[in-house]
């Protein structure tokens, strides 16, 4: 069978040998017949044939250079060459690659899942909310919600969205027969599910026909609610849920990742222009899907025109005097500033990968130098150029594959670590972070690029050489040592990139430490906080006030409780943004700040000092005296150099509450010391504290100062609230310390941790690279060292020389790195607090660390250098 011959390579090899042998014999015979002696004939024939190995090799190529057999041979050879005698080299190279690839993959996974595809919704990158921003405000953001009637105007008149949906926060009382339960039941426009493009997991989604007049009331259930309350029972479909007194049929259960608005159930509603003001107010958050091909800038312009028109209709309640309309990306709103952090971490991981590649390249290069003779020998023994190229590619490809496999293992481990330290509030709950296919493709691309990158290096240096030269130099390699410029460049580049990473890590660390030292102005220790939502039972101001009073009194009676206080806003992170009007008319500029509705205990509970005047009293609450306490920032902004006490301030925002304050003019009776009220990083904004009894928002925060660990009081607090009213919802029970850690310090800490790990890995790689190069240098210069010592150089001289050599690399790298810092550190400027991006101390620190590492890496090779025995060297000459 002819084709069998092509497969059975050994037969084929033997045939080729025989064929050539016979022809050779025939040639010899012919020459002898012509009269030559056997010796003459044989040597003439040999001359004639030339290099027989080479002939065979070229012929074999003809069998198909892509043939499996020769490929397998390459792989076998590569495996042998990376294993045999080079295990150390291989391990270092593979680990280095794995580090780079693993870190990149893990970081990519986070970026991909958090920034690019966080939600399960269709066209999620085209989903935007509309925000009315007051130009007078220095804060970003604005009003993203619209009353039903205005919502409908936008829905019908806009020309920028394919479709628009609305959603409104809503809690409903679920009457189960036993104790009623308060569930999170946002109201959504009937098109919401179609808009988001997610089908129901079981049953069906709601459609506009479900809210048509006369249609039966329905609701859609979330996966987690279905699992926890109905044990995942499929018979839930068609069951009636009694929500706020309306029986609603369950028509579908959504898949696990669909947790829009963190709902337990979604209630589809029809927006009616005439919807009454009620409790809570019927504000709908608007979400639109931008038409394809419209830029956000163009859409902003269009919407601005529409809004100007609508403003005429709805002013002055809904629109400030001067405003801009802006689109806010839906994902953007959730991820916000963290995007920048993630991108700078991606840049950092890119640097790390570059260092890793440079390191492997440098390792391969060093080895290529020592393999010059091997390559020369193989060439002279008949290996074709292409064959050697293939062989080298095969070797680096194999390294890259091993690196990629190990890298994947590193990545999944790294991802777990990342997930553990990723700040929870910074990405949407829907985001599922895992190593996905796209990320895998990225890794493979990185791997291939890496393989090609350093596969080329031995080719450039290895094959450009003169064979004779390489063979001739034999064991005497003194002339061979002139490390190529490329090798030096790689090492210098590594050091430079490592300096940028170090400086980045140093800056994040300094910034973080400085941030931790910012005085809060209040004492966050032994302080428990929670948010309490009152449901339908407490509609009036008086009812809410009574609940608040009874609740605080009940808490105060508990053992271990020192003080209790309530406020409308969750301090120390925010209040209600408002404008102040100061009636004396001397302050004409826009006066912005915030307002909180508090009880008289707040300052005592939080350990805030009263600077001037008096505090609020129970009498102020009960008597509804229109009095207020202001913070120092307020006093010094609006009444510089004089006393604020006795002055008046008007807060019109309070007149627009669902339960409005009719004449919101307050007499200032006291001034408190400042405490952080706009987040830890930002400066304190002017704030006015008014008695909570002036209105009721239906929810409030509670602070409990305890003598012991506040954490242990959490359950009791919740139970107390429920004893007073079973329908109360208690959320976010946590210590103020925890809240600070999670909301304020978590992101910078995350950046810090990642940066530190990356820069540490970078340092290790640089150290390994430098060590490798220095050891190699020393081994090559052993003779020189020997001669120097024979001529009287001391151990110190030789060691110093080696270390100086190492530090020269580091020095040049540092200079290059300084240039890198100028460009690179700009990226993280926006994330720094209280420290300049080009902070000299930090950069000097980085330089010092690098120099130390440089010395450490050169030390062992320098010791090895002194072991050169002068006698040996001389004998060898």
């Amino acid at each position, binding site marked *: 069978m*002819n084709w069998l011959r092509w497969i059975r390579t050994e037969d084929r090899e033997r*045939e*080729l040998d*025989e*064929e*050539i042998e*016979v*022809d050779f*014999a*025939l*040639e010899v*015979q*012919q*020459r002898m017949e*012509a*009269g*030559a002696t056997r010796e003459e004939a044989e040597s003439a024939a040999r001359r*004639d*044939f*030339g*290099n027989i190995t*080479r*002939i*065979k090799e*070229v*012929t074999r*190529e*003809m*069998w*198909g250079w892509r043939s499996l057999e020769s490929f397998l041979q390459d792989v076998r050879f590569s495996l042998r060459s990376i294993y045999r005698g080079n295990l150390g080299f291989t391990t270092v190279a593979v680990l280095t690659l794995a580090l780079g690839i693993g870190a990149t993959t893990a970081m990519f996974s986070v970026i991909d899942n958090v920034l690019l595809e966080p939600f399960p919704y269709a066209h999620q990158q085209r989903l935007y909310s509309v925000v009315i921003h007051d130009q007078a405000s220095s804060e970003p953001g604005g009003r993203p919600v619209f009353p039903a009637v205005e919502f409908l105007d936008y829905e019908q008149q806009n020309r920028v969205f394919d479709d628009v949906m609305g959603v409104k926060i809503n809690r409903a009382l679920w009457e189960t027969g036993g104790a009623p339960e308060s569930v999170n039941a946002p109201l959504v426009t009937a098109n919401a599910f179609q808009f988001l493009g997610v089908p129901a997991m079981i049953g069906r989604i709601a459609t506009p026909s479900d809210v048509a007049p006369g249609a039966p009331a329905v609701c859609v259930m979330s996966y987690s609610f279905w699992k926890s309350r109905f044990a995942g029972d499929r018979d839930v479909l068609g069951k009636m849920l009694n929500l706020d007194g309306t029986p609603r049929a369950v028509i579908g259960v959504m898949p696990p990742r669909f947790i829009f608005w963190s709902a337990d159930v979604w209630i589809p509603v029809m927006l009616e222009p005439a919807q009454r003001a009620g409790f809570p107010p019927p504000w709908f958050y608007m979400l639109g899907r931008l038409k394809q091909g419209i830029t956000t800038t163009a859409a902003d312009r269009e919407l601005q025109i529409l809004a100007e028109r609508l403003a005429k209709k709805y002013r002055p309640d809904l629109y400030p005097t001067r405003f801009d309309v802006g689109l806010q990306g839906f994902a953007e709103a959730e991820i916000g500033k963290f995007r920048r952090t993630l991108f700078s971490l991606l840049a950092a991981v890119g640097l790390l990968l570059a260092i890793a590649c440079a390191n492997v390249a440098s390792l391969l290069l060093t080895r290529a130098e020592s393999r010059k003779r091997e390559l020369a020998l193989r060439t002279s023994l008949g290996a074709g150029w292409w064959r050697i190229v293939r062989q080298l590619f095969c070797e680096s490809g194999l390294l890259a594959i091993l690196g990629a496999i190990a890298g994947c293992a590193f990545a999944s481990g790294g991802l777990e670590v990342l997930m553990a330290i990723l700040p929870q509030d910074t990405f949407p709950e829907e985001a599922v972070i895992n190593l996905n296919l796209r990320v895998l493709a990225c890794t493979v691309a990185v791997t291939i690029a890496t393989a090609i990158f350093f596969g080329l290096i031995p080719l450039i240096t290895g094959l450009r050489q003169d064979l004779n030269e390489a063979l001739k130099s034999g064991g005497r390699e003194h002339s061979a040592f002139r490390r190529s410029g490329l090798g030096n460049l790689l090492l210098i580049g590594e050091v430079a990139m490592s300096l940028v990473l170090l400086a980045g890590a140093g800056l994040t660390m300094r910034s973080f430490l400085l941030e931790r030292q910012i005085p809060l102005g209040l004492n966050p220790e032994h302080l428990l906080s929670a948010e309490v939502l009152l449901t339908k039972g407490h509609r009036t101001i008086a009812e809410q006030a009574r609940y608040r009073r009874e609740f605080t009194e009940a808490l105060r009676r508990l053992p271990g409780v020192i003080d209790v206080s309530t406020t409308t806003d969750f301090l120390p992170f925010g209040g209600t943004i408002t404008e102040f009007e100061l009636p004396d008319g001397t302050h004409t500029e826009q006066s912005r700040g915030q307002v909180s509705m508090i009880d008289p205990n707040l300052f005592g509970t939080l350990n805030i000092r009263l600077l001037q005047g008096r505090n609020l009293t129970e009498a102020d609450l009960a008597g509804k005296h229109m009095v207020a306490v202001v913070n120092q920032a307020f006093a010094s902004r609006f009444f510089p150099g004089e006393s604020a006490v006795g002055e008046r301030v008007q807060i019109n925002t309070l007149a627009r509450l669902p339960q409005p304050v009719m004449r919101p003019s307050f007499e200032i009776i006291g001034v408190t010391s400042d405490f952080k009220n706009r987040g830890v990083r930002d400066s304190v904004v002017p704030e006015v504290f008014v008695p909570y009894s002036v209105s009721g928002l239906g929810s409030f925060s509670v602070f409990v100062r305890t003598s012991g660990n506040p954490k242990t009081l959490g359950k009791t607090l919740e139970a107390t609230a429920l004893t007073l009213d079973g329908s109360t919802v208690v959320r976010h029970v946590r210590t103020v310390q925890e809240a600070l850690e999670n909301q304020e310090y978590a992101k910078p800490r995350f950046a810090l941790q990642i940066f530190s790990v990356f820069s540490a890995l970078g340092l290790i790689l640089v150290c390994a690279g430098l060590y490798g190069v220095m050891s190699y240098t020393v081994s090559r210069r052993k003779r020189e060292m020997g001669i120097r010592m024979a001529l009287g150089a001391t151990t110190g001289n030789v060691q110093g020389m080696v270390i100086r050599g190492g530090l020269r690399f580091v020095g040049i790298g540092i200079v290059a790195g300084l240039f890198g810092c100028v460009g690179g550190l700009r990226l993280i400027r926006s994330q720094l607090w209280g420290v300049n991006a080009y902070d000299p101390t930090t950069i000097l620190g980085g330089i010092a660390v690098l120099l130390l590492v440089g010395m450490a890496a050169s030390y062992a090779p320098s010791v090895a250098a002194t072991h050169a025995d002068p006698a040996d060297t001389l004998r060898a000459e």
Partner: protein
Amino acid sequence: MTREKPYQDRIELMQGTLDMLVLRTLQWGPQHGHGIGQVIRTKSDDALQIEHGSLYPALHRLERKGWLKSEWRPSEANRRAKYYSLTAAGKKQLLAEQSKWNDLVETIARVMKPA
């Protein structure tokens, strides 16, 4: 004694012509590698010397393309040798190459002829 031409008088083979020469040589009957080389050499009056490094790859290439087939038979050297012979496809290929070659020679001659 084999009379050898001085090196300068040898003719460099044009790319692709070796295949044609091999096919042509085998038109007279099966031949082994050494024989093919010899025939080309004598026919060209020693002007064409085929390098072994090109001959074997060419033979294997042609066999792979299906233009030659090979079999082992006893040779004049008292041992078996690998004899190549033309296949039907090889004969067709030879005709094609030959007419292409004639065209080429004619065309080049026309161009080179003094006007």
